[in-house]
């Protein structure tokens, strides 16, 4: 009796086990996505992965990789993509398109396509977050600036925190500053000329990652940055306000792409769909991530200089196909001009 019971128990356990083992065969499998390490990885693990699992029974595997690493790792894989999806800023996106690293995307396959504003999806990818760039200042210490050129005037210049061409937001801000002094998207020479005149007064020339800390500690009281940084600092009780310069705030998007040769294309579409869905976008737009959403169904935060996503089409944008070939030279020049 005992033996039978044991057998029955073993059979029962085996049946349960096999049910468990066969479950993944019914599940839709997995998708591997490259993601920026840090906040992006945390945010997607917390908000995208559960939705993907719940709605589509797909496991999200993430590889924490910076943009350059994604492009390089794909190039090194020679036809066997190491991940199914990229996440890229405009500069590396152009490089990857040039190198033929993306599958074309059929936006009609995305259930949330109607919620994505114009200009935020194309044949190569779909936006998953936006950045709005302008001037951030401490209203308790400085008067409100109105334009990019105010950064180089008193009283702002002696409280200015500068960062170079190392990030997308730094590059576009310096381009806009150059434009005020007669430069253009491909000519930032005026920035170097003007910065040289005031360099001795500038409060800090920092690395992009250090800028929020420098602002928080009062080392600088004005800087160019994105709304995400402003909202994050405000959330921590820092006196900071975002100003859209009179020539317009700058915007750019971070996009998701399907890797060329991916054997997991259906799941990659579902991953993108989950990432741009209203609940996920809403969650990503709240504390502690404060991403600028790309889904029309999500209400915009009070710290943003627009009341609807469609207004972003009026913001200043840049052609990274023109910027990319020049940027390495600008970074080198910035090193030399700023070096003590």
């Amino acid at each position, binding site marked *: 009796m005992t033996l039978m019971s044991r057998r029955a128990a073993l059979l029962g356990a085996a049946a349960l086990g096999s049910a468990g083992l066969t479950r993944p065969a019914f599940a839709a499998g997995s998708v591997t996505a490259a993601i920026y390490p840090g906040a992006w990885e945390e945010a997607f693990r917390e908000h995208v992965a559960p939705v993907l699992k719940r709605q589509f029974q797909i496991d999200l595997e993430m590889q924490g990789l910076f943009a350059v690493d994604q*492009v390089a790792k794909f*190039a090194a894989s020679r036809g066997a993509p190491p991940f199914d999806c990229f996440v890229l800023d405009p500069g590396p996106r152009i490089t990857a398109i040039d190198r033929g690293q993306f599958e074309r995307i059929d936006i009609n396959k995305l259930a949330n396509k109607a919620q994505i504003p114009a200009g935020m999806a194309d044949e190569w990818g779909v936006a998953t977050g936006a950045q709005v760039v302008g001037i951030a200042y401490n209203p308790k210490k400085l008067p409100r600036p109105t334009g990019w050129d105010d950064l180089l005037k008193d009283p702002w210049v002696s409280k200015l925190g*500068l960062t170079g061409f190392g990030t997308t937001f730094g590059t576009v801000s310096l381009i806009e500053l150059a434009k005020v002094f007669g430069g253009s998207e491909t000519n930032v020479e005026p920035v170097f000329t003007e910065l040289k005149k005031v360099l001795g007064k500038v409060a*800090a020339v920092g690395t992009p990652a250090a800028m929020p800390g420098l602002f928080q*500690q009062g080392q600088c009281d004005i800087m160019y940055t994105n709304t995400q940084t402003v909202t994050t600092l405000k959330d921590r009780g820092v006196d900071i306000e975002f100003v859209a310069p009179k020539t317009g705030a700058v915007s750019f998007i971070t996009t998701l792409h399907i890797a060329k040769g991916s054997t997991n294309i259906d799941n990659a579409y579902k991953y993108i769909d989950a990432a741009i869905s209203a609940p996920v976008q809403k969650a990503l737009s709240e504390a502690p991530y404060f991403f600028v959403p790309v889904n029309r169904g999500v209400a915009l935060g009070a710290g943003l200089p627009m009341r609807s996503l469609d207004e972003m089409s009026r913001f200043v944008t840049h052609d990274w196909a023109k910027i990319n070939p020049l940027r390495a030279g600008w970074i080198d020049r910035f*090193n030399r001009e700023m*070096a*003590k």
Partner: protein
Amino acid sequence: MKQAFIRMGPALPLGLAYLAFFVAPLLMLVAVSFFADDKLTVLGLDNWRKFLFDSFHWKVVADTLLLGLKAVCATVLLGLPLALVWRGASPFWQRVLLFVAVMPLLTSVVVRTFAWIVILGREGVVNQLVLGLGLAAEPLRLLQTELGLVISLTQIEMPLLLLPLLSVMARFDPNLLDASASLGASPWRTLFKVVLPLVAPGLAAGALLVFASATTAFISQSVIGGGRLVYLPSLVWQQAMINANWPFAAVVAIVLLVSVSAVIAVIALAGRIAGGRVHGAAA
């Protein structure tokens, strides 16, 4: 042969791992530096020429090595007296001092670096003290200066100097100090003629650890030093991670490796000579 294998056998797994994960990537790094384009398709010396024939790059090399030497000097000047105090302390206080010396290692270097922003900033602890005491009318500029960077590196790297130094200090015979005093030597003469030569190997080991760590301290250099102080590690980062120019990044990385190794070799040699002289005389 068999005996040699038995002797070397236990070290084989580590040796193989070292070959696979250190030597092989290093050789790949050297190979990458000989490509002329960022897509690694054309061989050429272009990137070596670009680095070697530009005075700005040599200034960056010099600044990086000088930063390491300044950090070594500051840690030795502050660490050696602490080690002497430790040598003369009771076992209880020795344990307390050792804990204090090692404690910074228990905190992440990132946290220690960001803590220095709070200390050295315009509204930081130092400036509040200086302004509060009326020593200056305006906040001192400490962040984003080489002085601020050296101060922070001194604290951040101090355990690396103290640990080898204290282990050598623990071994030296205290009777030698009494012997020196009984022969009429002043405390200073005893320090320079007896103590320093005896602890030279530990001091050299600590100094080379501090030097290697300070010259490659990317986070501290970037966060405390800021954008106007350009050192080799930030140049490697820019070229590799922003410009995607891996061949040039490889050139800069090799220059960093070679130049830092050269100085380390000199420090190690100086330590051996100083130590050898003492031990030779003792023998």
